[in-house]
């Protein structure tokens, strides 16, 4: 087995254990509600419902899905079996819609919003941070406090302010949704234009906050690298500044990839709340609806999906990181 395979297998096993724990938490926490969770949940959600037949049917669906009469171990096995078959249960709020169907309709919106936003924010943030550290002076004095301030604004706060300024006051962009509500999703210029117009504000608010956090991290890393011995040595050797800047940038950049892996969970969480502000038809908005209706299957479907995607993103980044960082490669060789 070569060094990289070993690294891969090791990481894979760790992420597998983590995944199991994430699934376990998703299973156990909602079941910690005192008493019979099904009857509590059903009584909460059927408040105001008068049709006893419907209530009974709802109750029975969830009794079967939760398998509440069986021991906890068996319940967990049923849960995992259903998961593997892609069955996340039935939604309370939108009974009898399947949670999987709801999530499937939301995923493209969330991915289309968050993936580009986080990547663009990350790249711009790193460039700005590196420039601030390199140029110093006025540039640093401006970028740094601004980045720090933006970073202290929660994602959704910036989103609300942008909604107010650009959506309500200036009326440049629509207020909510993923496309104009009178439209039916189809492939046409009008529809795509509408989607882009709705996409702009949530996209920008995620990008801005991401830039803030990343610029701070990159600035710190770059200053650290700029003060290190190899920079001084290269300068004494008379190597061109642009070349040194390249070395520094590369060295400071690598830890930022791990940084991205580690902060991706927080970013996704923040972006989800951003979606709520704009009523963007993604996972975040569904989660908000689910929480308001105490729709437990949908809540746990959302949390599970988010946890799994964050784990996957992390895993992918670590695998890529193992490829590109020579220091990790060296460590693998030594172990070998």
């Amino acid at each position, binding site marked *: 087995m070569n060094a990289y395979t070993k690294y891969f297998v090791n990481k894979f096993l760790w992420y597998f254990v983590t995944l199991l724990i994430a699934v376990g938490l998703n299973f156990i926490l*909602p079941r910690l509600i005192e008493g019979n969770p099904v009857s509590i949940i059903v009584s909460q959600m059927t408040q105001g419902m008068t049709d006893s037949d419907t209530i009974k049917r709802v109750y029975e669906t969830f009794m079967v899905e939760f398998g509440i009469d069986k021991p906890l171990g068996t319940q967990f096995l049923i849960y995992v079996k259903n998961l593997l078959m892609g069955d996340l249960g039935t939604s309370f709020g939108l009974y009898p819609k399947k949670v999987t169907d709801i999530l499937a309709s939301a995923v493209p919106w969330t991915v289309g919003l968050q993936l580009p936003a986080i990547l663009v924010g990350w790249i711009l943030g790193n460039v700005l941070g590196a420039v601030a550290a390199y140029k110093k002076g006025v540039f640093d004095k401006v970028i740094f406090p601004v980045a*720090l301030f933006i970073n202290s604004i929660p994602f959704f706060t910036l989103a*609300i302010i942008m909604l107010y300024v650009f959506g309500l006051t200036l009326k440049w962009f629509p207020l909510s949704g993923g496309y104009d509500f009178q439209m039916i999703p189809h492939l046409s210029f009008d529809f795509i234009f509408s989607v882009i117009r709705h996409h702009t504000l949530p996209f920008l608010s995620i990008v801005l906050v991401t830039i803030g956090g990343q610029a701070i991290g990159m600035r710190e890393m770059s200053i650290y690298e700029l003060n290190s011995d190899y920079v001084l040595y290269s300068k004494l050797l008379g190597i061109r500044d642009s070349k040194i800047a390249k070395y520094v940038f590369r060295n400071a950049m690598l830890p930022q990839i791990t940084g991205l892996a580690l902060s991706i969970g927080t970013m996704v969480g923040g972006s989800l709340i951003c979606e709520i502000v704009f009523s963007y038809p993604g996972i975040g908005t569904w*989660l908000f609806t689910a929480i308001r209706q105490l729709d437990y299957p949908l809540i746990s479907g959302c949390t599970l999906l988010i946890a799994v995607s964050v784990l996957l993103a992390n895993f992918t980044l670590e695998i890529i990181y193992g490829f590109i960082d020579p220091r990790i490669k060296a460590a693998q060789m030594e172990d070998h």
Partner: protein
Amino acid sequence: MTNSISILIKSPKFVIGAVVLLLTIALVNIYPLINTKDPLSMEALAFQPPDSKLILGSDNFGRDLFLELMYGIKTSIRVGLIAGVIATTIGLIFGLASGYIGGFIDDILTAITNIFIVIPSFIILILISVSINSRSSLVTAIIIGITSWPWTARAVRAQTTSLRNRDHVNIAKISGHSTTRIIIYEILPYIASYVVMAFVLQTASGILSEASISMLGLGPYNTISLGILMNWALVFEAPVAGAWWAFIPAALSIAIITFSLYLMNTGMDEIFNPKIRS
């Protein structure tokens, strides 16, 4: 200790951050003494714009938003501080144990830490909050605290591992001091600045977490916090009503408080960690 403080006072970033934070805390504690009204009492019609009587206007129920804001900031800072204390304590204990004791315990604790760094704490926060029926602001603070310790644990572990084999620690070991004593007298003083910085950051992130979770409608009951104010503004469609005073002041308050905490942290970082001084 007095020495560190006298150095800290020379850092403009730290001083600005600390002054802003202390002024905010003073304001929110003194104002309710002057205006002794109940923040939840109705004073005007819904969404009245700011005027001479109500500095920040009224919310959807016609309540005095400025007074609500004062109570909100107070709750948010308290939640942040409690969450910060809990997260820092757990992180410190985990980090010290795995860094100093090493071996098998280190393996297990590091594994737990790594696992909980990757699983988004936001998700665990939602799952726990959904499962608990009666949440006071204290309960929310505790939940935030027990979901946000892994970063501190990792950092403390790294620091402790590098200290473990220093000469003064070895001397203490040879002199037959107990492990507790060595940790308290030989390790802790060296990582104290680090722990304080971690605490400041944890407090800031605690305030942000409270705001996010309350925004989702999973915040504490029977109280006002900055996140709850934002949640009300959104649920009752203040932006659509054009009532900027219902959410912009709360949003800015969150930003200003966390900004001052970050600023304090950066100031301390530049002093205790000379390598990153620019």
